[in-house]
């Protein structure tokens, strides 16, 4: 799922899969800066089931009902790799993190072509999620279909409670 997600952006090279650990639906990257954390990761990577390990190192995201929900850490990496993006207005940002698709009028800048997957950025260049351009942006019509947005953190929390 992680590979498929990165492939959509032609960004498979961003992650060294030898350093990725899958735990249930989640994907975790071995920390590279801290020696103690790295050794700990290596030790417990080989005993996930018996140790009850649920999270370790850097979260790259997880599968949620067949949709990949990337972490902000991974989305920032993708953004920095200069993949196709759309940049949206403040109002568009509010609607998008509420799980809405994007209207043409909310798109401030776009490097994406029709039917292409793109990362969604706000005016501060921060990643908010990703989706697909379904038609040429114009006016109030929906032109960008949301696949995942960071409002999911809140929706997940509400479901848990």
């Amino acid at each position, binding site marked *: 799922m992680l590979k498929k997600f990165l492939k959509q952006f032609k960004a498979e090279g961003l992650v060294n899969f030898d350093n990725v650990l899958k735990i249930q639906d989640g994907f975790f990257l071995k920390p590279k800066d801290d020696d103690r954390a790295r050794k700990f990761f290596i030790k417990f990577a080989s005993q996930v089931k018996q140790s009850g390990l*649920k999270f370790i190192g850097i979260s790259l995201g997880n599968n949620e009902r067949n949709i990949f929900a990337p972490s*902000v850490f991974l989305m920032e990496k993708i953004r920095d790799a200069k993949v196709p993006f759309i940049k949206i207005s403040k109002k568009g940002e509010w609607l998008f993190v509420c799980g809405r698709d994007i209207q043409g009028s909310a798109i401030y800048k776009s490097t994406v072509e029709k039917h292409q997957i793109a990362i969604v950025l706000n005016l501060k260049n921060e990643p908010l999620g990703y989706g697909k351009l379904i038609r040429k942006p114009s006016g109030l019509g929906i032109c960008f279909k949301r696949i995942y947005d960071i409002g999911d953190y809140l929706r997940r929390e509400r479901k848990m409670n």
Partner: protein
Amino acid sequence: MEKDLKKRYELLGHKVVPVQLPVVIRVNTLNIKETDLIARLKKAKIQLTKLPHLSYAYKAKANFSLGAIPEYLLGYFYLQERASQIAVEILNPKSNEFVLDCCAAPGGKTTQISQMMKNQGVVVAFDNKSRRLLSLRSNLERCNVQNAAVFLRDITHASNEFGEFDKILVDAPCSGNYVVDDEWFEKTDMDGIKKNAYRQYNIMQSVIESFANKNTVIVYTTCTLEPEENELLIQKLIDDFDIKLMKVDVGSPALTNVFGEELDKNIAKCARFWPDEHKTQAFFIAKFKVK
């Protein structure tokens, strides 16, 4: 029962008063510079007041939910009550240390520990409820925590294959308090308080016997006013294990006389937050080492 519980507080010199808890945020410096976030939130018409004695805490006032704004979703801050933030500051975890957070979900304190450690070293987090771990996982990811390992474990049944911890936080499951639950007096009785005290003792026994050495700093916290889960529990630990209490310089000194029972004078080194006195929720903090 409601009257009995209220009367207990009167016997300890305090009243039951309504307390309106302010919304408090902790700036997550793992993701953003404090000055940058404050400028952004102020621009969004959120009133902020820096809280004393805490490194990154602000009282926040807004006419919308702070838990739904992009700055929250991007992990730039965590909504975390003042007393709860103090517990981690008292633990004072440092970069490159090896820290255990025993009852970690939903992760407010775990993310704060990682922040204070600047994502260096290792935080081992335990919780024994699978469902609560989802929330913990989500918060760790949102806050960009990179030095934590989370295990589904009950500390009272866990073996220590991890090694020696520098610091341990036990934010124990407790009876809670009336400030955060309108029906607290109706729902709480002495049996429940005693059951919690029994479980807390078992947790501490496991921590002391299996996870700590003489250099390990242990911080024990609850968010309840009940002496059975606080001072009386610490007295049992003094009686049964060789522990050395360290001074906690916040709140009020803990009680050394509980309903006529004289306790070890060193228990006054622990701290209590009374809602009527400190305008926070109820909180108890003990810090100690095993001799």
